[in-house]
């Protein structure tokens, strides 16, 4: 079997109209993949940028997978939320990116989107907060029913991921 090490960090997020952001992240893999060590999901702290609009989390990601095949390559998905001074959380965006498949260090910028409701809901969101969320979280990392959604563009989540691959060349995989 081949092994994949994913080591990196969620650096932060920029371009969101809200401040005080935190991120819930997770990794989804196919059936042929087994997680040997590491936590496959987590939540960052809440960060409020003082200068500029980039919120920094520097949240570590350290995972070790073993795989029997190429199907189901790991996918990272994020939910970026903002927390206001009253402690209420509001969705700022859903984001997704594939874990790269070539060894080395990759800087990834994942754009995010959030679902839009009717204009009434949008107005309410501007004043009171809230807004529609996805019913099934797996829509973020699968493309099946995406065409039903009407969304708005959010900010960008920045990642720095380093990848170590082992034994892939023994099975003739070029990466």
């Amino acid at each position, binding site marked *: *079997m*081949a*092994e994949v090490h994913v080591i990196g960090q969620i650096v932060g997020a920029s*371009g969101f109209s809200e401040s005080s952001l935190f991120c819930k992240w997770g990794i989804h893999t196919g059936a*042929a993949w*087994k997680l*040997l060590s590491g936590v496959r999901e987590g939540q960052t702290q809440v960060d409020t940028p003082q200068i500029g609009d980039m919120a920094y989390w520097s949240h570590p990601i350290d995972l070790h997978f*073993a*795989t*029997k*095949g*190429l*199907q189901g*390559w790991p*996918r990272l998905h994020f939910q970026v939320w903002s927390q206001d001074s009253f402690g209420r959380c509001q969705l700022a965006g*859903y*984001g*997704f*990116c*594939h874990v*790269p*498949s*070539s060894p080395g260090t*990759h800087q990834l910028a*994942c*754009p*995010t*989107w959030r679902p*839009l409701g009717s204009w009434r809901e949008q107005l309410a969101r501007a004043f009171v907060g809230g807004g529609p969320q996805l019913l099934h979280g797996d829509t*973020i*990392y*699968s*493309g099946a029913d*995406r*065409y*039903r*959604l*009407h*969304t*708005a*563009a*959010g900010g960008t989540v920045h990642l720095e991921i380093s990848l170590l691959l082992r034994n892939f*060349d*023994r*099975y*003739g*995989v*070029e*990466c």
Partner: protein
Amino acid sequence: MAETVWSTDTGEAVYRSRDPVRNLRLRVHLQRITSSNFLHYQPAAELWKDLIDLATFRPQPTASGHRPEEDEEEEIVIGWQEKLFSQFEVDLYQNEAACQSPLDYQYRQEILKLENSGGKKNRRIFTYTDSDRYTNLEEHCQRMTTAASEVPSFLVERMANVRRRRQDRRGMLGYKKYEHVLCTLKVDSNGVITVKPDFTGLKGPYRIETEGEKQELWKYTIDNVSPLAQPEEEERERRVFKDLYGRHKEYLSSLIGTDFEMTVPGALRLFVNGEVVSAQGYEYDNLYVHFFVELPTTHWSSPAFQQLSGVTQTCTTKSLGMDKVAHFSYPFTFEAFFLHEDESSDALPEWPVLYCEVLSLDFWQRYRVEGYGAVVLPATPGSHTLTVSTWRPVELGMVAELRRFFIGGSLELEDLSYVRIPGSFKGEHLSRFGLRTETTGTVTFRLHCLQQSRAFMESSSLRKRMRSVLDRLEGFSQQSSIHNVLEAFRRARRRMQEARESLPQDLVSPSGTLVS
């Protein structure tokens, strides 16, 4: 004079050892320089020091013109945290009133015992161990610069407080101006040993000049005389470690297993993890992307359940600098097989093409085509970020544009593959004369490509990255041709052997038995 070379380098040296520190032994040899022994240079002993253990020496307060031989030279072997008392300490602890902590009482007992057994064996060289009051206070008052009054800053106080937490602050130092630090030894729990100054070995001895009414010159050397580990012990240790690591590796490999899905021999599998990232620079809002992958007609195939197309969500744009950008983050996975059967063709293999069209659908249900684009999938494995530029067909005249603005609807392509080479094209010159287009925005794709083939396994030892994929696949056919040649050779030899056997014996040479 020319023989003795002083060593003035008193910087510290760092050593690493996995051995427990109680095996550490240090030998210090201290000697005073007088005119008589200056010429006979004796190698000095070594000192060890334990954690924050200071071996110092203090000259005898009674000065006399004539000193016996013993006063001028001393050699001590010290182990870790071994406490050797100075004269001052002996005097201090014999007085019971001066004992304040249990450690002081313990020292007093030891000194009394020593007195009973005939005095201590070291006269000049003594040590301070980790638990002595001296070391903590010394650290606090240590001066770094030559400023006249150097006051320890707040940070120094905090650091000293951290180390000093367990002990009280009272205490009196000895005649500090007569004490010189010979060597400081620090050990931490990771097996890092810091010796300041370093062991003298090939360097010359260190020197101390005492101040005061009598200026004297002393020299000392430090050596490491720790006993070496027994070879059997080392062997045992090594075996234990090997066992431990071996078992851990077995456990890991049992978790992992040894199978991996393989391709059919002679086939190349192209595996692409991709995502439609974003689209920018378009006129209207509420964009969505419809894309699909087209495989070339020859040599390529894909699994039956493979979905080769996708539609993203509709996204409202936002302004990013000059452009308006829509974020999709739409994942897709694509897999295809390339079968290299026909070896006579020299042409490069055709690679699949990714076509995309961008459309906008707004609240009023106005449907517009925003652009068409196409890009060839990358032939090299790795991560690629592709930016596809798009165009849309326009009609001459104002009417079409007005209609597009007010109610939507415009010219569309019937066959999307017209963007590159139409599927129905058979001639040699493609002419697009008459088609009017307008440049619109761009779509960004991020693709992670992997290629898998059995041929890569065999040629992995001679990896030549400059060769194209086709060349590497050729290796498969080359091997089969070599195999054919070998097969033919073997057949010919067998025939020859049979022919030889059928010949009469006297015609065959006597050394014919060498033929195997």
